[in-house]
């Protein structure tokens, strides 16, 4: 039985495969945003998956959206898909209409100061490593005030200063600086701590799904290479050492996909979603330091060149594993929770 969800995945996968070429990715590293590709996704409604149809979205569930983000990761898609989808969800959940403008997001908001005055709000502070600021109109981010209240901010980027930076995959991760930036009351929406937590963990899971997809891609590339590349008169995949390495890589990629999917499923069930997301980010970030060297080892010299697409994935994996907190950051939180509980570990799981 072919479900509508299956059709969504297949269609999206086909589109990415056709469009998201090596050249398109290289261009994006040189600052050329893939507008046509983006517009096509937008017109297909991919950017509003998980938003109910009666809120002007495409319907489907968040689970389906995360499955699409995995595809985006598996094609190293240089587009703000996760950012747009997650911003849209927040608007809808806070009862706001879907915006006509373009949004990027930030989940890091520790040093931002927010002051209310008669006509609106004044923001001071820096949002670090924000993706796609050149493209977006507004930055969407939850911010906690000194009084402990949470607000979802929508900051027009033309009111801010941006300082360019990028990750080692050449993806722009700019600094957004607000200096007495004044925004109006409709751009500051009160939210519950639960909403803020949800936003943060959805952002984290978005990146995690992309990692799972990219891991799957380097596995596929490595298997392909091992079958095609000949050495000493036979495919290198026939050599025991390569075969064993590929098996390890298969284990890493498959387990990463299982825990990513499991976290995505938890969104729907709402059971221990936050813990499951932290676990997925930790497990997958940790896997990358084993998986990437294997993929490069199998590809040998050719995979070390700019010509070969492997690096488009391995550099992203290196970057993404540290974004929104590395495994060291999240493992510490998981461990602290476990060790602070009066229950046995097994009873906490």
């Amino acid at each position, binding site marked *: 039985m072919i479900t509508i969800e299956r059709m969504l995945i297949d269609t999206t996968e086909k589109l990415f495969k056709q469009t998201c070429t090596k050249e398109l990715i290289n261009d994006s590293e040189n600052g050329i945003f893939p507008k046509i590709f983006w517009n096509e996704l937008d017109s297909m409604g991919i950017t509003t998956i998980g938003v109910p149809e009666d809120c002007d979205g495409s319907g489907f569930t968040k689970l389906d959206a995360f499955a699409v983000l995995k595809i985006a990761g598996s094609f190293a898609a240089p587009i703000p898909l996760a950012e747009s989808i997650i911003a849209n969800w927040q608007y809808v959940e806070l009862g706001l209409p879907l915006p006509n403008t373009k949004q990027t997001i930030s989940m890091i908001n520790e040093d931002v100061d927010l002051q209310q005055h008669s006509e609106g709000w004044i923001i001071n502070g820096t949002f670090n490593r924000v993706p796609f600021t050149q493209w977006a109109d507004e930055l969407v981010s939850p911010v906690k005030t000194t009084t402990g209240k949470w607000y979802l901010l929508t900051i027009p980027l033309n009111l801010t200063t941006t300082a360019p930076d990028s990750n080692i995959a050449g993806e722009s991760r700019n600094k957004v600086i607000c200096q007495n930036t004044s925004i109006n009351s409709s751009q500051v929406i009160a939210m519950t701590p639960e909403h803020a937590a949800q936003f943060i963990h959805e952002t984290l899971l978005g990146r995690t799904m992309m990692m799972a997809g990219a891991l799957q891609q380097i596995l596929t590339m490595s298997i392909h290479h091992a079958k095609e590349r000949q050495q000493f008169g036979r495919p290198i995949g026939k050599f*025991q050492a390569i*075969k064993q390495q*590929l098996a390890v890589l298969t284990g890493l990629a498959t*387990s990463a996909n299982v*825990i990513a999917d499991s976290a995505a499923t938890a969104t729907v069930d709402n059971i221990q979603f936050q813990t499951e997301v932290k676990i997925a980010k930790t497990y997958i970030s940790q896997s990358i330091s084993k998986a990437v060297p294997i993929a490069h080892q199998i590809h040998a010299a050719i995979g070390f060149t700019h010509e070969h697409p492997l690096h488009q994935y391995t550099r992203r994996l290196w970057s993404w594993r540290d974004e929104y907190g590395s495994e060291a950051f999240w*493992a510490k939180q998981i461990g602290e929770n476990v*060790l602070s509980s009066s229950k046995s*570990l*097994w009873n906490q799981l």
Partner: protein
Amino acid sequence: MEASLQLPVSKASHSLTEFRHEVRAFIQKELDAGSFQPDCDSWLAGFSREWSMKMGEKGWVGMTFPKEYGGQGESNLKRYVVTEEMLAAGAPVAAHWIADRQTGPLLLKYGTEYQKQTFLPRICKGEVYFSIGLSEPNAGSDLANIHTKAVKESDEWLLNGSKIWTSGAHLQDYMIVLCRTEKQTEKKHEGLSQFIVDLRAKGVSIRPITLMTGEHHFNEVFFENVRLSDEMIVGELGEGWKQGMAELAFERSGPERFLSTYPLLEEMITVLKQRADADSTYAYTEIGKLVATLVTLRRMSFSIAQLLEEDQPASLVASLVKDLGNQFENTIIETARMLIESEPSTHSEQQYERLLAKAMLHSPGFTLRGGTTEILRSIVGKGLGL
């Protein structure tokens, strides 16, 4: 993604979670009563007829078998819950483990009605135990290198040869023996058959193989003109290899492939909690990483149980779980050493030091049993079409 690597995400239903709590409560009651001491590798080393019969009474042995044969007709997922809870608690489940995991399913699939009626109800009661009879001396990883043979003489078969690494044979009742029933040809996988052999029959002798740990779990079992009736043939004559391999697939999928040292992890956490130690980043981080891996392996293994429930092929993914699981079992040991300074000893006053010693001493076995790391990785390689 390769289709063979697609794993469905399965979430436990509400009733399954309730059942898990029931099992957990039972175990806690027994723990409180002092019925057992949690131990590492309890599915291999914890032989307790009493415990197996208790589990039989609860209907937790052979629980997936049909009711007509003494089972509960329950799902693989429910069985998964029982095995996982038992392993996490380090309960002594070794006696019935093989019968429950592979002999039962083998007989259900290939056995005669007579065999099912005779053995399955007693397996379910937790009172009859089976051994595996595959490996032979000097065969190493080449499992098809089988020299044990059964030759038909009038209406009986005469079995001669030997099997090695049969865990618990000295305590168990029967063995499923894979042997030649036809002369070996070039195609060494052909002409093999499986028989049920009574380990107390005339002509059977059992020699203990003492492990490096000093323990006796494994044996070499010798057959000298052991008489077998046709009734004891499992499945088709000559189809033994295929049947035996199907049996092996059951071996690799379960949580015993990553939970062997779990009781050490739990005890390590207990010790760490008691430590008044301000420098806790190290412990938090390392425990967090272990927990992340544990949860991932549980999700994978549960998904495999789901696949088995749906009669889907799972041998490739099962091999991955075993490989990752064995690494995890060893990482627990090394993390323990790094976080808590101690000198492990099997007869220490500290439960922590005892569990660590046991885990270490058993660790070389983790990758040997149920297929070595090389074999597993070769299976995966083959599955990838290399």
